[in-house]
């Protein structure tokens, strides 16, 4: 039996940033990773920053407040907490921390100043969001880290570079002062081995293209890329790559099923379509492998993504057996 520490040891970072094209299931993957990393009595934090309440929807909870709440427990005493970071709240918290605004802070919100400040300068908003993520990643109480790992359900691949490249965005606006210091702190954390950015994709053309683009962009920004996570992978069927009607007719006879022309042709058409699709998937998989990043494949969950499904994905992400790299 491999211990959980060793299993988590294969995901060595402490801040796991999960991105991917919209529709690839990055929120589910982030949640599964948070569950998997919480095994063995560990505590993880699952964070979202886009105001989508995707975590609440996934776990069928009321919308999450700007608070770290326990949303799941894991056998062995582990737990996952979740936080939906709201840029306005983060700015108020930040101002409170440095300037003790109190009631004035609430008045600022009333006149739209907070909305103003966070929309006029998207870079500022991103610094606040990533700053909060950094704070929870590094937070310690009584000399112990509060979270063993933090998993961020990050913006999609199209925006991930800009989102994580906080210093560049703020440098244009703030040449000095605490925001600059803050963004530099965030930037150095994001470029350290503590951080790992994982990209979720499907074996479809556009998500794969965006995955490759995002990896190139992150690489140029010197932000460490972790794994490519292929979601919704199909089981290997018809690996011989060929299927004939004659063969199907023989098989249908052996199985005691109808062997009329319609049945044979229908089954044949579906099998051929599967092969066409698989051929495309193989070439996309090869493109992903060429990046040199390790690939993890997660199965399509027939019952949809419920808690049992998330546990199954967690088991695929952090298997008891060492991960089998795709050839």
């Amino acid at each position, binding site marked *: 039996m491999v211990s959980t520490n060793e299993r988590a040891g294969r995901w060595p970072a402490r801040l796991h940033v999960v991105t991917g094209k919209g529709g690839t299931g990055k929120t589910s993957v982030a949640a599964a990773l948070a569950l998997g990393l919480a095994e063995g009595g560990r505590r993880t934090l699952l964070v979202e920053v886009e105001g989508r309440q995707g975590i609440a929807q996934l776990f069928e909870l009321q919308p999450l407040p700007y608070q770290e709440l326990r949303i799941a427990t894991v056998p062995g005493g582990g737990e996952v907490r979740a936080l939906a970071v709201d840029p306005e709240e983060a700015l108020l918290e930040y101002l409170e921390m440095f300037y003790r*605004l109190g009631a*004035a802070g609430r008045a600022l919100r009333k006149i739209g100043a907070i909305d103003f400040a966070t929309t006029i300068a998207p870079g500022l908003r991103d610094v606040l969001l990533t700053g909060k993520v950094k704070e929870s990643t590094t937070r310690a109480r009584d000399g112990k880290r509060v979270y063993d790992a933090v998993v961020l359900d990050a913006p999609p691949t199209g925006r991930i570079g800009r989102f994580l490249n906080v210093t560049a965005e703020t440098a244009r606006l703030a040449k000095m*002062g605490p*925001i600059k210091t803050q963004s530099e702190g965030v930037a150095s954390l994001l470029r350290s081995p503590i951080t790992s950015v994982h990209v979720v994709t499907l074996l479809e053309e556009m*998500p794969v293209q965006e995955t490759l683009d995002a990896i190139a962009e992150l690489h140029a920004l010197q932000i460490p890329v972790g794994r490519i996570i292929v979601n919704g992978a199909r089981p290997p069927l018809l690996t011989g790559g060929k299927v004939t009607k004659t063969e199907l007719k023989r098989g249908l006879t052996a199985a005691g099923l109808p062997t009329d022309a319609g049945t044979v042709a229908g089954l044949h058409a579906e099998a051929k379509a599967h092969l066409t699709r698989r051929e495309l998937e193989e070439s996309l998989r090869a493109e992903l492998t060429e990046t040199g990043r390790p690939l993890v494949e997660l199965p399509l969950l027939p019952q949809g993504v419920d808690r049992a499904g998330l546990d199954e994905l967690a088991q695929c992400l952090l298997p008891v057996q060492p991960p089998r790299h795709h050839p």
Partner: protein
Amino acid sequence: MTRYARVVTAAPTDRPGLDLDGLLADPAVKIIVCCGSGGVGKTTTAAALGLRAAEQHGRRTVVLTIDPARRLAQSMGLTELDNTPRQVKGIDTDAGGGGELHAMMLDMKRTFDEVVQAHTTPQRAAEIFANPFYQAMSSTFSGTQEYMAMEKLGQLRATEEWDLIVVDTPPSRSALDFLDAPARLSRFLDGRMLRLLLAPARGGRSMFTLVTASFGLFSKAVQKILGAQLLTDLSGFVAALDSMFGGFRQRADETYRILQDPQTAFLLVATPERDAVREAAYFADRLVAERMPLAGLVLNRVHRSSLPSLSAEAGEAAAARLDAAGDQQVTADALRIHAGLLRQIEREVEVAATFTDAFPAVLTVAVTAQPADVHDVDGLRTIGTALTTAG
């Protein structure tokens, strides 16, 4: 292009089909807006509809795309982001006669620049362009792309050059951003906040005392946090914009009126997946609330079986029997593929029903999943046929 699965079964949504050919042919319909969450095939749908309007219905059509996939852009001959409609070559208008297809990619920053140039002197424009806030806002402000898409739509419509404008909406975090952006941007530029920044109140009426006091605190905080230069830049920026966009709210209102007009048709685009359908439902609610004309739902990437008579259970049981017997691996696999497909269809029908149950009046058309993304005009034509014959 080969189809992923032949159409044999009925569409998963047993609703009256949405007649897109009727919509494309209707001379009273001048604008079609495709909206939905990211990754559902919005741009492809917009392009395929534009092509069909030009080829089959003789309409002079322009497709406004936002951030299309590279190969899709190439399929329409778009190689660069130049913000001008370009005629798409290689289309076949024999059937409809006289149609034309033009396509353009939105260049958000350039559109913003054009708006600035159109409303101010060259010197003032140069000052605005040099302001770091303008640079940040024109390229990264979260509502700018949505706003500029609407701005461009207004421009295209104002030329009265087009029979039909098909718009693909930005891949917003939430589909709703697209409707909110013009109002949000105008509220921002027109708002109290901006006036406060422009003319820090000296006392003012008593009801504003707390507000103005805290605003003073706010600008002090901003100075401390971000530095005085930033506040100067910011004031310069809003002053410049204020002088220019006197009627900013009016422009936004105008956009809203265009969108509410019966000459506009909104098409929701979704795939039979939970998130996409949820987003489409939000959008449908919103369009109804805003009294905007919702034409129907396009459900992309729907799977179909060529052998609906053999149930998933029967297929799996037979595959297990063949496994036990040992020498019919190919048929066993084919039966498992069939069973998997049927289960997927079952899920898709369930997910699609969450929408159609909530919006029984919204017409739907289902488009069969294609094995590969569209790379050329032929591919778009295939999608156009699927959009108008399925369901």
